[in-house]
């Protein structure tokens, strides 16, 4: 098949499904302050994480780091609805991508969790910093409610091989799940 001028590559359809479950990291309520999806295969084109989260402590925040990098290599912007207020926020030169109010905490009603879907496109590229897009939030009403479209930036062109999720305090409660999916491309 001729590849049009300017197009580096075209990958055509394979015979099987393009959306695959790779792995799940689960909370246990006693030891899991960090959940890591590691040894991420390099043979997909895009990644998706579907999460469901509660902390054992009174926090609403968890953070995401890529490839274990803990330096000021991240930025974050959000379009937010919280109670009756809309807002647009920015944070640069961060040490992680924070998901503020992205998890339920111990102050939330029992059994309440928060959740979302996180998309990372072209995660194996070695010429691109990595851009994260997420739709997430929670409506348990004893902590501030939130729905947000988040964009996150990892200032590093290295291919992604691991994703770590770090709870703001305490541990990720049992039944917390960060499930990783790969999309062929």
């Amino acid at each position, binding site marked *: 098949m001729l590849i049009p001028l300017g197009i580096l590559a*075209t990958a055509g359809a394979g015979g099987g499904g*393009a959306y695959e479950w790779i792995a799940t990291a689960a909370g246990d309520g006693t030891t899991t302050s960090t959940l890591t999806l590691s040894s991420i295969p390099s043979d997909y084109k895009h990644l998706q994480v579907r999460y469901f989260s509660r902390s054992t402590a009174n926090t609403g925040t968890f953070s995401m780091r890529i490839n274990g990098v803990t330096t000021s290599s991240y930025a974050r912007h959000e379009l937010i609805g919280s109670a009756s207020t809309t807002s647009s926020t920015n944070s640069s030169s961060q040490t992680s991508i924070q998901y503020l109010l992205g998890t339920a905490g111990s102050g939330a009603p029992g059994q309440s969790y928060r959740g979302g879907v996180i998309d990372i496109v072209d995660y194996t590229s070695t010429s*691109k910093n990595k851009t994260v897009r997420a739709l997430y939030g929670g409506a348990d009403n004893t902590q501030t409610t939130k729905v947000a479209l988040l964009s996150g930036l990892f200032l590093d062109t290295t291919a992604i091989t691991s994703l770590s999720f770090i709870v703001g305090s305490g541990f990720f409660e049992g039944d917390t799940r960060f499930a990783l999916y790969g999309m062929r491309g």
Partner: protein
Amino acid sequence: MTMRLIETKTLGADAASIEFTSIPQTFTDLVALVSARTTVASVAPVITMTINGVSTDRTARRLAGNGSTVESVSTTDSIIGSITGANATANTFGNGLVYLPNYSGNSAKSFSTDFVTENNGTESNQRIYAALWNSTAAITSLTFSQNGNFVVGSTVSLYGITKGSDGSTTVS
């Protein structure tokens, strides 16, 4: 299984557009995942999508944030989001999703988009769109463009999703 890759296109050189033609009519919905940057001298310039070569008969409503303020706008153009531009942090690309349900049917074509750009600074865009192509024609081509060139490495993956039944779940 239901989601299948139709094609991924990745630019080996800067180019004005990325186009998918002869889209198979065998799926229920189309999903496009976009990783793109443009040469346009802005932090978060727009990306457009023409359908079957047509940029007219369009309606959209968007909600957007730029890192500081929130706006909602109605349009009749072919803009579907914003991507990272030349004035943003180097090597940084936008991230977008386009969902086109019932693309091969004979009703007007509603679709949705979620696009984000990034930048290690104040300005960056997050946009959600409700969009419509008021045509009953089946979608056979999609052309992604912007007001300059997509830079090398920009990529779009097009997937087809097929509805079905597992034989036990009911619906009424």
